[in-house]
């Protein structure tokens, strides 16, 4: 009996991991809802508020994509995923897009059957410690116990960094960010490490944030990007150009508030193409006219999304830094709408 059950479950696991899908765009249109994989809880990026509404930078990307494809930013089904589940969920078709502070790396891009769209947030890995330890630099962490989320690039960087600096460490790994935070707060480990944005987000969740300090070292590049399944170029294009539209809107100064005015009066040819006044930008993607207009009208441009969720006026107080537009000395850059 046991043998039979195990056999069956093996078959079920194989079958569910590989349901074939036709075009993702058709599937989403048919379902009338976008299935978006998000973080289980990371303030500023993806978190359900007290009313069960999902909020955050990663969440706003899902909303923008839903507005582009379906014309309505609220037509999103959020699927909270931990780091270990996320790629399988995407590969198996459980979600249409993964927007979950995921680092674009060579291995993931080439061997997991997924494609990364443009970078939504340029990040890097850092360390947080209790002030009472008196540690001023990551170089003083020899022998420390580190709390970390399993299956992340962070986990690999950590090992590399300590190895490169001839230091030893003990890693305690957990499935979710919440478990990591809880263990860190309970004193199970000396150090919490994740992407710097995640550290600031996590710090807002601690009972006494002022008792903890983020160390100055940033030990890695973490370009966080949404991802879609490999092999569906049309859907990949839509996902890429949604992000590009948000960036171009900021560059051109088009906001939620003035997008209608821009649509009516702007004389800038690129703005006209972006807002479907001229050209066939949405047609090329097999979408309704005004697809990007919907996203900007309902969700806002990249700068608005950034400031609303993680900017200096939020509890996270993150400066634009690398995430400023290329025109302002940052890295955020969109190819032209032409």
């Amino acid at each position, binding site marked *: 009996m*046991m*043998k039979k059950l*195990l056999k069956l*479950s*093996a*078959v079920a*696991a*194989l*079958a569910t*991991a*590989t349901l*074939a899908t036709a075009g993702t765009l058709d599937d989403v249109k048919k379902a009338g809802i976008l299935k978006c994989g998000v973080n289980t809880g990371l303030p500023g990026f993806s978190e359900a508020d007290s009313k069960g509404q999902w909020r955050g930078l990663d969440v706003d990307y899902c909303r923008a994509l839903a507005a582009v494809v379906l014309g309505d930013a609220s037509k999103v089904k959020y699927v909270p995923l931990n*780091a*270990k589940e996320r*790629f*399988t969920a995407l*590969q198996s078709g459980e979600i249409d897009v993964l927007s979950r502070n995921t680092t674009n790396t060579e*291995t*993931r891009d*080439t*061997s*997991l*059957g997924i494609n990364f769209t443009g970078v939504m947030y340029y990040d890097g890995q850092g360390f947080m410690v209790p002030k009472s*330890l008196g540690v001023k630099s990551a170089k003083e*962490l*020899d*022998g*420390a*116990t580190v709390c970390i989320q*399993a*299956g*992340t690039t962070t*986990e*690999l960087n*950590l*090992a*590399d960094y300590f*190895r490169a600096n001839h230091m030893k*460490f*003990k*890693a*305690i*790994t*957990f*499935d979710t960010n919440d*478990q990591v935070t*809880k*263990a860190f707060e*309970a*004193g*199970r480990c*000396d150090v919490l490490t994740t992407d710097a944005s995640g550290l600031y987000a996590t710090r807002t969740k601690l009972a006494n944030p002022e008792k903890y300090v983020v160390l100055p070292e940033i030990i890695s590049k973490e370009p966080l990007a949404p991802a879609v*399944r*490999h*092999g569906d170029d049309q859907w990949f294009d839509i996902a890429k150009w949604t992000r590009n539209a948000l960036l171009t809107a900021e560059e051109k100064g088009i906001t939620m508030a003035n997008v209608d005015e821009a649509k009516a009066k702007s004389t800038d040819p690129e703005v006209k193409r972006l807002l479907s006044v001229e050209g066939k930008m949405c047609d090329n993607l097999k979408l309704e006219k005004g697809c990007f207009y919907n996203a900007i009208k309902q969700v806002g441009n990249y700068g608005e999304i950034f400031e609303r969720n993680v900017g200096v006026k939020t509890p996270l107080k993150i400066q634009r830094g690398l995430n400023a537009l290329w025109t302002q000395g940052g890295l955020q850059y969109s190819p032209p709408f032409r």
Partner: protein
Amino acid sequence: MPSFLRDEKIRGILYQIIAITLFVGFLFYIAQNTAHNIEQRGIKTGFAFLHDTAGFDITESPIPFTPASTHLKVFEVGLLNTLIVSFWGIVFSSLIGLLIGIWRLSPNWLINRIAAAYIETFRNIPVLLQILFWYNVVLATLPSTRHSLNFFNAVFINNRGFFMPKLVFQDGAWMIGAAIVAAIIGIIFVHRWAKKRQEETGEQFPVFLTGIILLIGLPLLAYLIAGRPVTAVYPELHGFNFRGGKTFTPEFLALLFALSIYTATFIAEAIRSGIEAVPKGQKEAATSLGLSPLQQLRLVILPQAVRIAIPSIINQYLNLIKNSSLAAAIGYPELVTIFAGTSLNQTGQALEILLITMLTYLLISLIVSLILNWFNAKMKIKER
């Protein structure tokens, strides 16, 4: 209808053949479909990843492990940790289960009720919740490293774990091992001799006491003769943490605790039903022979009760081994946590890794049940 089809036996076989063909065909279709989809998506397949560098670290490993080790090594570490926690879980749950099972039938009202309350409480709460509960309780109540509970500067307890001196064996330590083996052989010999003597003359010999003296005395003698070849390494606070000595992490302790306490309730019930299944006349006969209550239990009731209880206890052992995979919730690095968890995510080879993991559990379970079934067959009353 041809005549042979009217034969019930032949029809039965025919149905079986059709069913098997359909089932195999279904499996084949699934495998084909899977392979096709994987290829189309550009997902890498195969088992070559096992020899790639893992790149991450594992906290507790019975064998040397560094981030430069391979995923195969991750598998080995995970498997060993699963076996270690399962082994101790089986030992402790058996001991607790036996005790509670006997208490459950005690004529003493208080003891009887305590056992019942224990069983009803811990049997009816999901084991995952119990694991999380113990883990969080352990972490919340224990002091930080610098304020460790200190016992004679040898044993330290804090929220990083339970630190105790580790024994280091030097040249000549083999003599102690040899002494233990000799003691065990001696005890078996004494036991046989005593039994034979009792059967012949009716006189009893204190086998238990002699056994203890042999088991402690012989190794001690060897230790002194060999020039004290065993020393201890004491844990010492060094920078962030204690170094040296033997450590039990909170993850290990919480998992072991939860699994033992949970599984013990089922074993206790198995023992209880075993004892209740022993005919009442056996106990009355034992009483009339003048055996004390403890002797009745040890010599008459338990040997029969355990026989009845063994099959269901085997199932509980298998459950315990499988439940150990819930460790993923608290990060104890066993097979599912590090291999079917971290390795899977770092390599993305979900199918291969899940297949290996499932086969491994299947194999462990089959081996355990094989051993215990053999034991069961041996223990069964020989009916002639």
